[in-house]
C-alpha cells in the first residue's frame, strides 16, 4: 500500500474562491492510501514546496497528489520538488482543479464536489504508480538544414559559428532562395543581392558548413540527437570538382528554349544552366528533359567546348547517408497558382503579372534588363494598377484564408520605385486594408502615398478585361467613395498569396512533424515555442512556419539556430520514461501497433519466450523507447491488451475512471 500525501493549492483566489479547499483536504483524507493532506496558498512557491518536502520526510510518503493547475503548467515543478526530497518524480500526480474546475464553474458546492472527484482519480492512479527511471541517449553533434534560402543560410551560419557542423540540403542548383529573385528590399530599399550574396559566400566558405545543392532529403529515421538521413544528390551531369564556372557551355548550348525558373518563366534558359550569375555553387546543371544529348543522343556541344573536361553525361544520382543531432526545416514558399482567379485575366493577358514577376522585370539582371515594359509588346506602361490580397484573406476555397503578410509592404515598395524611376507613370493600388506593422513600415507606406503620389483606393477589383486595343480595363469598387470604377491600365500587378513550398508535406511526413491545413509546419507552442516543431529535435525557420518578411525570417532563423546549438551542446539527452511497453506473454505479433505508431518506434522481432515453462520462438513487438513519444496509440490498438504505456497503464486509467464514477 502506498503512503500518499495530498497537497491542495489555493492558487491565491484562483482556486480558493470557487473551491472549498478545506473541504477537499477533509474529504481526501478518507481515501485509501492517503496518510497526509494539507492546503496552502501557493503550493508552487518555495514555502509550498518546502511543505511537500517536510511531509515526504515526516510521513514517509511514497506518492503525492498535488491538486492545483494544469500539469502543463507545473507538473515539471512538482516532479523536481519530489526528486529533491528523495521521492521518484514519477510518483507525483496532478489533479487539475483550476483549468478543469475552478475557472469554469461558478457554484462553490458543485466545484468543490468536482475537485474532490478529480483528486480521488489522481489518488487512485498514484496507488498504482511505480517509480520510473528516465534513460539517456547520445547526441550527434551535427545539424541538417533543409532549404538553402535566407532562412536556411542564416540558421546554418549561426550554428556553424558556434562550432558545430551543418549540412544544407537545397533542392535547386543554387542556394539563395526567393530572396535572390528580389530586386530591392523594404523598408530600406537596399538591393537584395547586395545583402544576400555575401551571406551565400560566407556559407559556402565556412569550414563548418557543407552544402548539397540539387539534392533532396529522401529518408529520415531515428530521433532527437540521433537522426539518420538519406540525401539524394541528383546527377548534375557536370563534375563539380573539375568545373571552373567559365560559362562557355551555357553560351554554346543549342537548346535555349526552356522557361527560366529563376525568372518565373519570363525568359528562357539553356538546357545546361546555372540559375543566375551569382549562383553558389557556380557549377551548372544539365536539365536532362531539355538537353538534346539526353533526348536524341545527338549534340554533345557542351562536352566539346568544356576546357576543363567537366561534362559527365554518365553521372548518376548519389545517395549520401549522414547522422544528425538536429534538423531544421527552412523550405520556404512559393506564390499560389492563379488558375482559380481568371477574373484577373492572368492566364489571358501577358500584361497581367504577379508581384514576383515584377521583381524580375525591375531587376537589372532580369528578362528586361531592369526596364519596366509590357511583356506583350515591350512598350512602356503609363498606367499601372496593383491589386492586393489576390488569394489572401479569402473566404472560399479558391484562395488562402490567411493574410500573406508581406504584400502590403512590397506593393508599396513597387509603387514607390516605379514612381521614383518613371515619374510619368500613374500608379493605383487597390486594397482591402493596408497592413504595415513593423519597424519603419508605416512610415514607408506613407511615403509612397504622400511623397510619391501613389493612388491608394480601398476596394477590390472585380474584373480585369483585356481590350481589343491591347489595354486592360480594370473594374473595381471604391468603398470609401461608394462608386464603381472603370479604369484603363497598361499593366496589372497581382499581389499573389504565398503558400508553403510544394514538397513540404512530404518532408513533414518524413520528419513526423505536424503540419496545418494550409501546409504550414506547426510550432510546439504558438507563443512560447515558436521555432520548435512538436517533434523533438526538429526546428522551424522562415516561411515554412508561417508568412514572414526578411527581417522576421532572419530573426527566426537565428532563434532556430540557438535552439539547435542548445541541443547539440548537450552530450546526453534524458529520455521520457513514459513509453509503451509490450507484455511479451500477451503479444500475438499481429503488427497492428507498428502500423499506428506515428513515430516509427515499433518494430517486430522473433524472440524466445518462456511461457509458463514452454520455451518457444515468437514474433513480438519491440518498442524503441528513445523514439516512443508516449502517445498511447498502440495501447488502444493492441487487440490482446499486451501494450501498456508506462506511467499511464490501462490499470491506472481504469482505476481513475472507477474513482470518478464511484
Amino acid at each position, binding site marked *: 500500500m502506498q503512503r500518499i500525501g495530498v497537497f491542495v493549492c489555493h492558487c491565491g483566489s484562483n482556486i480558493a474562491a470557487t473551491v472549498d479547499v478545506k473541504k477537499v483536504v477533509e474529504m481526501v483524507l478518507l481515501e485509501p492510501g492517503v496518510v497526509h493532506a494539507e492546503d496552502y496558498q501557493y503550493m508552487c512557491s518555495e514555502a509550498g514546496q518546502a511543505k511537500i518536502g517536510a511531509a515526504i520526510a515526516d510521513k514517509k510518503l511514497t506518492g503525492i497528489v498535488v491538486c492545483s493547475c494544469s500539469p502543463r503548467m507545473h507538473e515539471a515543478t512538482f516532479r523536481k520538488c519530489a526528486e529533491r526530497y528523495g521521492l521518484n518524480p514519477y510518483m507525483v500526480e496532478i489533479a487539475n482543479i483550476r483549468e478543469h474546475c475552478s475557472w469554469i464553474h461558478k457554484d462553490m458546492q458543485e466545484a468543490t464536489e468536482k475537485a474532490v472527484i478529480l483528486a480521488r482519480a489522481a489518488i487512485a492512479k498514484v496507488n498504482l504508480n511505480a517509480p520510473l527511471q528516465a534513460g539517456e541517449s547520445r547526441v550527434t553533434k551535427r545539424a541538417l538544414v533543409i532549404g538553402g534560402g535566407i532562412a536556411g543560410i542564416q540558421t546554418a551560419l549561426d550554428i556553424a559559428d558556434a562550432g558545430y557542423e551543418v549540412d544544407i540540403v537545397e533542392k535547386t542548383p543554387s542556394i539563395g532562395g526567393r530572396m535572390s529573385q528580389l530586386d530591392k528590399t523594404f523598408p530600406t530599399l537596399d538591393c537584395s543581392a547586395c545583402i544576400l550574396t555575401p551571406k551565400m559566400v560566407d556559407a559556402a566558405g565556412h569550414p563548418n558548413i557543407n552544402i548539397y545543392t540539387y539534392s533532396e532529403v529522401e529518408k529520415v529515421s531515428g530521433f532527437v540527437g540521433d537522426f539518420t538521413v538519406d540525401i539524394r544528390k541528383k546527377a548534375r551531369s557536370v563534375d563539380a570538382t573539375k568545373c571552373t564556372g567559365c560559362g562557355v557551355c551555357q553560351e554554346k548550348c543549342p537548346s535555349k528554349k526552356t522557361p527560366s525558373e529563376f525568372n518565373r518563366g519570363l525568359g528562357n534558359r539553356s538546357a545546361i544552366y546555372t540559375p543566375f550569375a551569382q549562383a553558389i555553387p557556380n557549377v551548372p546543371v544539365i536539365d536532362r528533359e531539355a538537353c538534346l544529348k539526353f533526348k536524341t543522343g545527338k549534340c554533345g556541344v557542351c562536352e566539346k567546348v568544356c576546357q576543363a573536361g567537366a561534362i559527365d553525361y554518365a553521372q548518376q544520382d548519389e545517395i549520401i547517408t549522414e547522422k544528425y543531432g538536429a534538423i531544421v526545416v527552412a523550405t520556404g514558399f512559393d506564390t499560389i497558382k492563379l488558375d482559380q482567379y481568371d*477574373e484577373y485575366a492572368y492566364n*489571358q493577358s501577358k500584361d497581367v503579372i504577379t508581384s514576383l514577376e515584377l521583381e524580375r522585370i525591375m531587376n537589372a539582371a532580369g528578362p528586361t534588363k531592369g526596364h519596366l515594359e509590357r511583356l506583350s509588346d515591350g512598350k512602356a506602361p503609363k498606367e499601372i494598377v496593383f491589386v492586393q490580397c489576390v488569394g489572401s484573406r479569402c473566404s472560399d476555397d479558391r484562395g488562402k484564408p490567411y493574410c500573406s503578410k508581406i504584400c502590403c509592404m512590397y506593393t508599396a515598395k513597387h509603387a514607390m520605385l516605379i514612381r521614383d524611376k518613371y515619374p510619368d507613370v500613374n500608379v493605383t493600388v487597390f486594397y482591402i486594408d493596408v497592413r504595415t506593422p513593423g519597424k519603419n513600415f508605416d512610415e514607408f507606406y506613407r511615403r509612397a502615398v504622400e511623397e510619391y503620389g501613389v493612388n491608394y483606393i480601398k476596394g477590390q477589383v472585380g*474584373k480585369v478585361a483585356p*481590350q481589343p486595343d491591347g489595354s486592360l480595363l480594370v473594374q473595381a469598387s471604391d468603398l470609401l467613395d461608394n462608386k464603381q470604377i472603370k479604369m484603363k491600365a497598361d499593366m496589372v500587378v497581382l499581389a499573389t498569396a504565398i503558400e508553403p513550398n510544394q514538397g513540404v508535406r512530404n518532408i513533414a511526413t518524413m520528419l513526423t512533424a505536424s503540419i496545418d491545413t494550409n501546409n504550414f509546419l506547426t510550432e510546439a507552442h504558438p507563443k512560447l515555442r515558436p521555432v520548435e516543431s512538436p517533434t523533438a529535435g526538429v526546428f522551424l525557420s522562415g516561411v515554412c512556419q508561417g508568412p514572414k518578411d526578411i527581417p522576421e525570417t532572419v530573426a527566426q532563423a537565428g532563434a532556430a539556430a540557438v535552439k539547435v546549438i542548445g541541443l547539440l551542446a548537450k552530450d546526453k539527452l534524458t529520455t521520457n520514461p513514459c513509453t509503451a511497453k509490450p507484455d511479451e506473454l500477451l503479444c500475438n505479433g499481429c503488427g497492428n501497433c507498428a502500423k499506428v505508431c506515428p513515430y516509427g518506434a515499433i518494430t517486430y522481432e522473433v524472440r524466445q519466450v518462456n511461457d509458463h515453462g514452454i520455451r518457444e520462438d515468437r514474433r513480438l513487438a519491440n518498442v524503441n523507447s528513445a523514439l516512443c513519444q508516449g502517445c498511447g496509440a498502440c495501447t488502444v490498438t493492441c487487440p490482446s491488451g499486451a501494450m501498456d504505456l508506462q506511467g499511464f497503464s490501462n490499470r491506472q486509467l481504469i482505476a481513475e475512471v472507477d474513482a470518478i464514477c464511484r
Partner: protein
Amino acid sequence: MKFSYYPGCTLRNKAKDLDAYARASAKALGFELEELQDWQCCGGVYPLGTDEIASKLSSVRALAQAKEKGQELVTLCSACHHVLKRVNDDMQNVEDIRTRANNYMKLDTPYGGETKVLHFLEVIRDRIGFDELKKKVVNPLTGKKIGAYYGCLLLRPGNIMAFDDPENPKMLEDFIRALGAEPVVYPYRNECCGGYISLKEPDMAKSMCQTICESANGFGAEMLITACPLCRYNLTKTQLDLPVYYFTELLAEALGVKEEALK
C-alpha cells in the same frame, strides 16, 4: 438515349425556334427529348426568399415527374435551367424547404432532389462528346467567327450550377470549334446582360449589352450565340448590328437539319 424535357414558356412563344432547332438536332445526334406532361412555368427567376416555397413548387413538380419516369431532366433556356437546378439543389440540401415542399405536394414518395438536371449543352458535352458532334457535322461553319455569350444564369453560382468555370468558361468555345467555326474569346462573355432590368430601366440593360457586344466585336466576332431568350432579346437592342443566334440554330444548320426543323 431518352431524356425528360422541360421546354419552358418562352420556348412556346417568343423562342419557338430555340426549341424546334434543339429537337431536330437531338434527333440528328441520336437522343430523344420526351416533353414532360402538364409542365408549368418555372417562374423565370429563382426565388431567393427562403421562407417561401410556393414559387418553387412548379419546379419541384417537373423534377418529381422526371424522377417517376426514371429519366434525367434536360432544359434549354438558361433561366429555366437556373431555376430548376437551384430548386433541385434546395430539395437535396435544404431540409426546411424539402420538408415543407413535400408536405404541400403530398407525393407518394417524397422528392429529395434525386433527378439530375442537365442543360442541352451538357448532354452534348458529357453524353455525346464534342468529338462525336464534330463527326456528325455535315455543313461545317468554316470561317465563321463566333463569340460565345454565356451570360450569368448558366454559370453562377458556380458551386451549384457546376456548368463551367464561371470566370473563364470554355464549353461554348469547344462547341463552336466542333461545328467547324472559329470561337472568339472576349472578356465579357460571362457578364450579365441586365436580365429583367430591361423592363424597368431599359437604358441600363442597353449599356450593359453595349459593353458586351463592343468587346466581342472588337475582338473580331461576327455574331454571338446564346442559350437564353432574354439575353438574346437584350443583346439585340444595342446600337451595334451584331447578329445574335440561339446556339441550337447553328447546331441545326451544321447538322443539316435546319430546314426540317422549321417544317
